C-alpha cells in the first residue's frame, strides 16, 4: 500500500497546479467564460504544449499512458480553477473511445489530432428521454452503400457547440435500453444534416442539442465493430465519472478554503463570524464532506482496472458521495457567506454552481444509488 505520488505524478500535479494558478484566476476565468466560445483556445494550446492532452492516451496512441491516478491529478487541478476547456469531452470521453475502439493506424492519426490540440471532440451519447442512461439510444445507424446513415437527437452534449467532431453513439440493433447493438461514429460537426443548438450551462460551461437528420458518413467513420461499442462506452464513461469526481473534490477544496477565509475575515457584532461555535461546527461538517469525496474519488480512480463489480461499485459510490457531500458543501458555503455567496461577482458562487451541477453530468446521485442498490439485491440473489 502506497498512497504517495510517483515522481511523474508529482510533476504532473505541479504542472497543472501552476498552470491553473497562473491562468485561472477568478478574473481570468470570468473573461474566458463570458467570451464568445466560452473557453480559451490559447489555454487549449498550452494544454497541448504541456502534453496534458495526451495524458490518458496509451503509448500506442502516442500518449502518456496515464491511468486513474493521472486522470485524478489533472481533474482535481482543473476543479480548483473551475477550468472551462473541453478536456472531459475531448480527451477523457472521446479520447478513451478512440483509444479503445479505433484500429491501429486510425488510432494514432486521431489521437495525434487531439494530443496536438488541433481537433476537439464532443461525445453525443445521451438522449432526451433517457435521463442518465447511456444505453437508452433511439438514434439509428443504417448501413447504406459503403457507409452509414444516422438519425436521431442527442441531448445536452457537453461542449457540442464548439467541437470540430462528434462521436455519435447510434443503435443498429437491440432493445432501446440495451448495451448491445451500439456503435460509435465520428461525425464532422459541420456535416450535412447535423444541426446544433449551442448554449451556456448554468455552471459556466457550454453544451448543445444535436439533431442528426439523414447524416451520411463513410465506412471509416465507424469506430470498431458495428454494434460493438458497449464496453468501450462504459469504460469511457467510467473515466468521465472519475474525472468529474476529482474535479468536484478540487472545487470543494477551494469552496471550503474560501468559506474558511471568509469566516475569519467577516466581522459581525464586533467579532469574526468564525468565532461562533454553531458556524465552526458547520465548517467542520463541510471539511468532513470534502474528505469523504476525496477518499471515494481516490478509491474510484485507483479501481479503473479492477474487476467489473468492484469497479462499478466504487465509481458509483464516489459519484453518489459527490452528489450528497457536494450539495452540502455548496449550500453551506453560500449560507455561511450570506448575501455575498449569492453574488455572481463572488468566486464562491461559481464554485457552488459547478459543484452542485456536477451531479447532473453522467448520472446523478439517485441514478448511481439505484445501481448500488441493484448490485446489493443481485448479490443477495446470487448468494
Amino acid at each position, binding site marked *: 500500500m502506497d498512497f504517495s505520488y510517483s515522481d511523474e505524478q508529482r510533476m504532473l500535479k505541479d504542472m497543472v497546479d501552476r498552470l491553473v494558478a497562473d491562468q485561472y484566476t477568478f478574473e481570468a476565468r470570468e473573461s474566458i467564460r463570458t467570451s464568445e466560445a466560452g473557453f480559451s483556445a490559447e489555454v487549449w494550446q498550452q494544454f497541448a504544449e504541456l502534453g496534458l492532452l495526451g495524458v490518458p492516451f496509451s503509448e500506442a496512441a502516442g500518449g502518456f499512458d496515464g491511468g486513474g491516478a493521472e486522470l485524478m491529478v489533472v481533474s482535481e487541478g482543473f476543479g480548483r480553477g473551475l477550468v472551462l476547456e473541453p478536456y472531459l469531452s475531448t480527451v477523457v470521453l472521446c479520447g478513451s473511445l478512440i483509444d479503445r475502439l479505433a484500429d491501429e493506424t486510425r488510432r494514432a492519426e486521431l489521437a495525434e489530432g487531439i494530443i496536438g490540440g488541433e481537433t476537439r471532440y464532443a461525445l453525443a451519447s*445521451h438522449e*432526451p*428521454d*433517457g*435521463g*442518465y*442512461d447511456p444505453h*437508452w439510444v433511439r438514434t439509428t445507424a443504417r448501413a447504406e452503400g459503403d457507409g452509414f446513415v444516422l438519425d436521431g437527437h442527442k*441531448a*445536452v452534449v457537453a461542449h457540442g457547440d464548439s467541437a470540430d467532431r462528434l462521436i455519435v453513439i447510434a443503435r443498429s440493433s437491440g432493445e*432501446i*435500453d440495451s448495451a448491445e447493438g451500439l456503435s460509435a461514429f465520428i461525425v464532422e460537426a459541420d456535416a450535412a444534416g447535423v444541426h446544433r*443548438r449551442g*448554449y*451556456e*450551462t*448554468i*455552471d459556466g*460551461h457550454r*453544451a448543445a*442539442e444535436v439533431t442528426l437528420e439523414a447524416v451520411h458518413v463513410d465506412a471509416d467513420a465507424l469506430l470498431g465493430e458495428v454494434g460493438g461499442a458497449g464496453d468501450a462506452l462504459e469504460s469511457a464513461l467510467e473515466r468521465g465519472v472519475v474525472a468529474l469526481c476529482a474535479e468536484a473534490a478540487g472545487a470543494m477544496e477551494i469552496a471550503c478554503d474560501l468559506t474558511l477565509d471568509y469566516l475569519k475575515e467577516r*466581522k*459581525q*457584532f*464586533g467579532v469574526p463570524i468564525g468565532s461562533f461555535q*454553531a*458556524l465552526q461546527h458547520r465548517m467542520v461538517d463541510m471539511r468532513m464532506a470534502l474528505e469523504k469525496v476525496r477518499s471515494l474519488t481516490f478509491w474510484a480512480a485507483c479501481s479503473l482496472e479492477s474487476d467489473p463489480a468492484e469497479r462499478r461499485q466504487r465509481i458509483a459510490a464516489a459519484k453518489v458521495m459527490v452528489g450528497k457531500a457536494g*450539495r452540502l458543501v455548496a*449550500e453551506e458555503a*453560500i*449560507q455561511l457567506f*450570506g*448575501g455575498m*455567496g*449569492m*453574488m*455572481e*461577482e*463572488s468566486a464562491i*458562487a*461559481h464554485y*457552488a*454552481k459547478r459543484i*452542485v*451541477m456536477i451531479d*447532473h*453530468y453522467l448520472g*446523478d446521485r*439517485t441514478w448511481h*444509488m*439505484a445501481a448500488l442498490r441493484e448490485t446489493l439485491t443481485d448479490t443477495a440473489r446470487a448468494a
Partner: protein
Amino acid sequence: MDIEYNAEERAFRDEVRAFLRDNLPADVAEKVKQYKRLTPEEMVHWHRVLGEKGWLAMHWPEEYGGPGWSPVQKHIFEEEAAEAGSPRLLPFGINMVAPVIIKFGTQAQKDYYLPRILRTDDWWAQGYSEPGAGSDLASLKTRAERQGDHYIVNGQKTWTTLGQHANMIFCLVRTDPTVKKQEGISFLLIDMNSPGVTVRPLITLDGEREVNEVFFDDVKVPVDNLVGEENKGWTCAKYLLTFERTGIAGVGISKAALAHLKTIARETVVRGTPLIEQPAFAERLAELEVELMAVEMTNLRVVAAAEAGGVPGAESSFLKIMGTEVRQKISDLYREAAGPYALPFIDESEPAVGPEFANVAAPTYFNLRKLSIFGGSNEIQKNIISKAILGL
C-alpha cells in the same frame, strides 16, 4: 376543536377564489407558477388591482384603508392568492414603511404617503443592510447630518431588493455617531431621484437582478422625511421586525410549487416511466409532502392562536425556518426532476431546451438559497428562538 373552515370562512374563501379567477391575469399566474420573471408592469398592475378592491393593505387598521380581516381571513387570502399563482406582493411599501408611518409618522406623513401606497403611486425600497452591517444591523454607518431643514446623507446600502425600479427608499441612517450604536440611528424616507443617489445592480448567481447597492453622495433629504424622533430609528426598526408576518412560512407558495412539481413528475417520462412512478423519486416527493403538511399545520396553529387573541412572537422564527427549508428542498427536487436538462442556462425569451420546466429548475434552486439568508438569516432566527423562547 375544528380544523375545517366554518361557513363564514368558506364563504370568504369562495369570494377570494372568485375574485382571483376574475382578476388575476392567466398569463401572469402561469409565469409565477413556472418560476418565471415578471415585468415591473405586471407587478404594479396586480398591486393596483388589489388596491382598487381594498385588499392590498391586509395588515393595516381599517381607518387607514385596511380590509379589517381576521387572522384566518388573512391566511385564507394569502394561501389562495399563492396557490392561484398571484404575484408576490412587494412588502416594502405596504408591510414595512406603512406600518412604521402609521405607528410613528406625523399626520402629514400619513396623509401624504398612505394613500400613495394604497394606489401604488410609489415603488418603495428598503435601505437597511450595509456591506459591514448584515446580521449586526445596528452597526450601520450611513451618515445623515442635519444642515438647516435638510439632512445630508452619505453612505451605502446593499441587498436593496428591486431597487432599480424604486423611486422611494426608507433608510436607517446614523444621526449621532457618538452614542451607543443602537441609539444614534434615525428612520428616513429618501426620494431616489434626488441628486447623489446611485443604484448599482448586484447580479445574483442565477443571473437575476433582484438586488442592488444604493450609494448616497451628499444627498439632501428634507427633515420632514424623518419618521419618528431623531435618533429613535432603532425603535422603528425593531417594531418592523416584530410586525405581524403571517405569510412568513410561505405555505401557499410551497403548496403551489409542490403541486407544480407533481404535475411535472407525472408528465416527465424518463426511460419509459413517468418520474412519479419511479420509487426513489416518489419517496422524496412523499417526504416533502409530509414536511410541507407539518409546516402548513404549524402555520395554521399560529394563525388560530392569533385568531384567539394570541400575539405571534418568536413563533414566526420557527415558521421562517421551517417554511424556507421546505421551499428550498422542493426546489432541489425540482432540479433533480430536470435531470441533464437542468444544465442549459437559457434566457426565458429563448425557446426552452428539453422540457419546458427544466431550464428554470437550477436557476430557481440557486435563487432560493436567498430564503435562508435574507429576511433575517435562519441562524439569526435560531438565535432569536434560543433567547426568546428557550431562554438560553
